[in-house]
């Protein structure tokens, strides 16, 4: 059989994750915008007319290192990188903004001179299916574990740090525990 002469011109097919939750959120926003109020949260809350796809901003010291950590270790996808000060990542329905401390934009000093920086205790929570195995794998990869796996009321949890010292909480629901909503 002769090869298709167009084969040399064909580009490799790159699989694209359709991000079904984003699609669902977008459809709800369209419905809300067209007056078909399918999402009560979109129009109810005043002053904040709130939308889907929650966004969290983390401050980091080095953009490339942070992107490598979140994409390489925690399954985030890179959506936009505006080096040296900003990147936008996604994981499921979460949009994570990385802003570099001291860089103009969100990392710029405030009027009182204080500079936004990494750290603190507030954190995103990522659900995993095997928290013990996940934490061990991360530890083996050199990720700093601030608090090892411990059992709470409904979940087991652990705290890891990104390269800037920001916390990420990993949780695994306890056996028999189901979300009520």
């Amino acid at each position, binding site marked *: 059989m002769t090869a298709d002469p167009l084969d040399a011109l064909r580009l490799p097919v790159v699989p694209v994750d359709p*991000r079904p939750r*984003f*699609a669902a*959120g*977008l459809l709800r*926003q369209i419905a809300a915008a067209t007056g078909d109020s399918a*999402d009560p*949260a*979109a129009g*109810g*809350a*005043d*002053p*904040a*007319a*709130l*939308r*889907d*796809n*929650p*966004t*969290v*901003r*983390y*401050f980091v010291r080095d953009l490339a290192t942070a992107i490598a950590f979140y994409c390489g270790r925690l399954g985030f996808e890179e*959506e*936009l990188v*505006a080096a040296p000060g900003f990147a936008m990542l*996604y994981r*499921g*329905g*979460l949009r994570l*903004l990385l802003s570099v401390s001291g860089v103009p*934009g*969100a990392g710029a000093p*405030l009027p009182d001179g204080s500079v*936004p920086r*990494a*750290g*603190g*205790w*507030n*954190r*995103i*929570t990522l659900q995993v299916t095997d928290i013990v195995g996940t934490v061990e794998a991360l530890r083996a990869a050199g990720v700093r574990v601030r*608090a*090892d796996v*411990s*059992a*709470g*009321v409904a*979940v*087991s*949890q652990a*705290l890891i740090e990104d390269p800037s010292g*920001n916390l990420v*909480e990993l*949780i695994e629901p306890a056996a028999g525990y189901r979300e*009520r*909503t």
Partner: protein
Amino acid sequence: MSTVSVRYIVDDVDAAIAFYRDHLGFNELMHPDPAFAMLTVGDLRLVLVAPVPAGHPGGGSRPMPDGTRQRPGGWNRFMLEVPDLEAAAAKLRAAGVVFRNEIVTGIGAKQVMIEDPSGNPVELFEPIRPEARLQGA
């Protein structure tokens, strides 16, 4: 319904519930313990926890193994999109909400930071470019 979970450490869970409910439109999903509550808005689940002692059944806000206590504050925060930032800010300011800065215009959005009663930041933003909107790419 919530797909994204964020944990904030607060000094007073009841005061925090009132703040997020009354000023920012969150709904209370559960408040089974004085040190724990779960709120939702849209696809965001906000878990509010007060620091608890090491023996407390709630695991999320216990001290670290080295004894370090978890505290409110820091700069990392979740963000809420509003259609009219000036109007939202004016309303919040009139209600006595603490602002950490004035409205600033960035590349993709106008933004401002407010604080909850424990001093945790919340960022409000109004997109000025379509790709900054919360619609995915």
